[in-house]
């Protein structure tokens, strides 16, 4: 059962300050409402993983790592590789993260990232079949949230795409009935560079890339994932509150615009050929 979340108490003073500043188009950390925080990307952070990236978005830290294996394909997609995204809200990242089975927050985060990658067709799963109906590649993208200062969704999408962008796939060969791993590797082809943009709404104002206190003070957030061709592949409203249709359309325009900028920054190393 999903229960109304108990947000950590943020002082009335801070709430008022956030809203007062926003009325003047300012924010608590000095940004303007549509300004993204600085992003740093460290590719190949985990050497044991076939692909990985550590992304810092302000103080938010997300480590994404890709592990490759082979698996039996799903019955309805016998010719397609398997993509599984999992998010761990590691307890050391925040006092609100607790050990135990995945929370609905972590499930919803990983499902959103999954949709962003899958629906954008960033990975051509049909190219990851070894023996139809029997054996396909499995791609596990594990997201590790290491420090939480808001906007996990955008940081997680950036980390996952970067990690997939440098993933080296071990080559498997079919020998009679057996499937053997060789010492050879080939590069996983990344077909798109989707970015997610998350907006937090405070009363009738909104900010992009909310920091933690903005997220806590907000009524709800809306995330939109934009592909390289400016089309959308995932949208989700999180949290209570209502948004007018006019506002949704405004966000679509904003996302196309801001998405271009964010994509260049977030995937600079992939596109410059360092990947």
């Amino acid at each position: 059962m999903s229960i109304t979340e108990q947000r950590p108490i943020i002082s009335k003073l801070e709430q008022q300050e956030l809203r007062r500043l926003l009325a003047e188009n300012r924010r608590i950390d000095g940004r303007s409402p549509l300004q993204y925080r600085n992003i740093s990307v460290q590719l190949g952070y985990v050497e044991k993983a076939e692909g990985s990236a550590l992304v810092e978005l302000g103080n938010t830290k997300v480590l994404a790592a890709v592990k490759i294996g082979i698996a039996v394909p799903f019955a309805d997609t016998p010719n397609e590789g398997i993509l599984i995204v999992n998010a761990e809200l590691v307890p050391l990242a925040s006092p609100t993260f607790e050990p135990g089975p995945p929370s609905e927050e972590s499930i919803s985060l990983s499902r959103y990232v999954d949709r962003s990658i899958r629906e954008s067709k960033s990975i051509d799963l049909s190219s990851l079949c070894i023996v139809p109906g029997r054996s396909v590649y499995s791609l596990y993208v594990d997201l590790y949230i290491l420090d939480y200062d808001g906007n996990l969704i955008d940081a997680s999408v950036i980390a996952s795409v970067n990690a997939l962008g440098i993933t080296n796939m071990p080559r498997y060969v079919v020998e009679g009935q057996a499937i053997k791993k060789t010492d050879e590797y080939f590069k996983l082809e990344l077909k798109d560079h989707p970015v997610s943009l998350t907006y937090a709404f405070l009363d009738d104002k909104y900010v992009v890339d909310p920091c933690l206190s903005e997220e806590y003070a907000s009524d709800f957030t809306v995330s939109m994932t934009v592909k390289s061709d400016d089309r959308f592949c995932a949208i989700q409203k999180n949290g209570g509150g209502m948004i007018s249709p006019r506002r949704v359309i405004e966000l679509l325009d904003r996302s196309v615009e801001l998405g271009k900028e964010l994509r260049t920054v977030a995937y600079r190393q992939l596109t410059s050929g360092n990947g």
Partner: protein
Amino acid sequence: MGEKIVLFSEDGKRSDGRGLDELRPIRIKVGVLSNAQGSAYIEQGKNKILAAVYGPKEALPKHISLPDRCILRCRYHMAPFSTTERKSPAPSRREIELSMVLRNALEPLVMTSLFPRTVIDIFIEVLQADGGTRCAGLTAAVLALADAGIPLRGLAAACAVGKADGKIVVDLNDLEDKYGEADMPVAYNPTLDGITLLQMDGIMSKEEVEQALSLAITATQKMHKMQVDALRERFSVQRREV
């Protein structure tokens, strides 16, 4: 796979004979369960969904309660026999996410500050699934809340819109949901002009999302009228009995 799934017939009609902006047949009944404070049943196409509301009641254990308002607990669940392949009755990741999304969609409708320290339980049980269950479930859950006499800011109805074979369509059926290009569930409250549930997966351009959104609003306005009629039917019967 292999064979091409046909979503549109040659005369442009959808696989179930509908036009692009046509809803499936909808039947709604309010007050169908005897123990729940409020309940509703909806049939939309082949969907059969029950919603029940218990509460407001004391929130136990106490630490889950909030001093200034009531909390909502929501469970969206699909019966094992509701789908073609049997579904395990244990809650899937999808059901956990949808329970949260539905709670988020219902919460802004309820005047929660009237009932501090209490809890309202909302159960949505999908008996037969035919695409668009979260939307039909929400439409029923709102009525169950109203049936329970819980003060609401307004009703909301939900409908999935999306893209199938390049066309923007309303109220996706199972086939269009599975083989179409995009699916966008929307819950809308026409009196406050507010969207309380918005999700999208699949690929649509900005213009297509805009078009889908406006179709969703027209469709949910139609459904809003059906909701009002269903409530009227429920309570006019009671008046006659008095």
